[in-house]
């Protein structure tokens, strides 16, 4: 019979995985519904932090509280945390890189827009 600590770890992990599943569905729907590239960047943030980072931490909790996984479950805990942290760093860096490249190369028109300081700065540099 599993102890109270193991049940508590598993429940905490399952709550985190449930949050991740919810964010995943929301990000997928928004990726369809949002109108253009720059707005879809927000959907990617939901999908990469809420939908991937949080469930990986949740799996670390589930593995820590599941004795039926055998002696290698502590390896699963450590590997899940390492993968989660690396994913957290790389998702932000990669998204920033592609957004910057898209704006500088004008691959996607910025429309509708209210103000675009990056473009104004580039025009000012060109005129001087």
């Amino acid at each position, binding site marked *: 019979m599993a102890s109270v600590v193991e049940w508590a770890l598993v429940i905490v992990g399952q709550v985190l995985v449930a949050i991740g599943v919810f964010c995943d*569905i929301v990000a*997928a729907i928004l990726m*369809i519904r949002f109108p253009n590239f720059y707005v879809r960047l927000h959907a990617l943030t939901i999908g990469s932090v809420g939908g*991937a980072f949080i469930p990986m931490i949740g799996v670390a909790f589930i593995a820590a509280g*599941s004795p039926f996984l055998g002696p290698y479950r502590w390896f699963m805990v450590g590997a899940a945390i390492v*993968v989660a942290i690396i994913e957290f760093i*790389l998702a932000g860096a*990669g998204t920033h890189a*592609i957004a910057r490249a898209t704006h500088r190369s004008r691959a*996607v028109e910025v429309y509708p827009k209210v103000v675009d300081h990056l473009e104004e700065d580039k025009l000012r540099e060109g005129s001087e």
Partner: protein
Amino acid sequence: MDLEIWVENFIVIAMFFYVAAFLLYTVRIVRGPTVPDMVLAIDALSYDLAAFLVVLSVLFRSPIMIPSALVLVLWAYALDIYVAKYLESKELGE
């Protein structure tokens, strides 16, 4: 209730939601009007596939699935950097 059955049932239910999200991302990859849109959807799909692999490793009791998720995340980052470099300078470097 037994802990093992409880965890397995939870992950089997979560699997359906993950697969539904993957199908919606695939719609955006196919329909995406521009190249950055497709790359964005492929990124989101890759990160969620990595999370899905980590979740499935508990169901299949196989710890070796977690490092493969790490490789998938690194490939998604490499795709980002290559496409960004191509868009900015129209070449892929040496």
